[in-house]
């Protein structure tokens, strides 16, 4: 699990993660990419986080996911700082014997990262900057786990 300002290569991370699996036939990954605002004109995105809390919050989620879905392995990488359109914000990867477990665990990790890991996104355009509001659907998504 890594929280970092530097860019990373999701493809290289996926390959390294997959190659490390001895007996997990199913690998699921999620990548989040900076996309434009619905109204267009995004210059960049700023991601702020709470350093002391981020590591322990994510470690707790990963531990829960690994135990609950008998994962062989799980990976979380999340960037902070300024990111341009098209840059990869974060990725999650999970490995399990069967695909249902790998998928469920990746969705669980995403739902928790979205609403329980201390990151905040700000969209910066030529017309000003605005903090991204939490979506009710994201909070509601936690209810299913």
């Amino acid at each position, binding site marked *: 699990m890594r929280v970092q300002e530097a860019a990373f290569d999701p493809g290289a991370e996926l390959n390294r993660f997959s190659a490390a699996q001895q007996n997990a036939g199913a690998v699921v990954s999620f990548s*989040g990419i900076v996309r434009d605002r619905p109204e267009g004109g995004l210059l960049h995105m700023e991601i702020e986080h709470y350093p002391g809390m981020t590591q322990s*919050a994510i470690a707790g989620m990963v531990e829960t996911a690994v135990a609950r879905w008998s994962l062989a392995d799980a990976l979380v990488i*999340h960037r902070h700082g300024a990111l341009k359109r098209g840059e990869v914000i974060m990725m999650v990867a999970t490995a399990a014997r069967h695909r249902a477990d790998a998928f469920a665990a990746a969705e669980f990790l995403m739902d928790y990262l979205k*609403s329980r*890991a*201390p990151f905040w996104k700000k969209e910066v355009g030529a017309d000003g900057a605005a*903090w991204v509001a939490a979506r009710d659907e994201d909070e509601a998504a936690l209810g299913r786990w």
Partner: protein
Amino acid sequence: MIDVLYFAWVRERIGLPRERVETGAETVADLVAELTAREERYAAAFQDLSALRVAIDQELTDFSAPLAGAREVAFFPPMTGG
């Protein structure tokens, strides 16, 4: 003395990322009331507690939580990671 941290728009409204606060507040809500009474910028940040989250010593909690023994309290809007 307690470290109080602010993130995202809470940080922007209050105008600083962290400060050390001398307080006898018993709960998070008491601390919020003390800060709100101090200056307009705190009142602006804390005007709608339903839009805020709080962590004590880096664990999410709620506004009724006791502050006894706490070293660090952080205020921020709902998270938007991922």
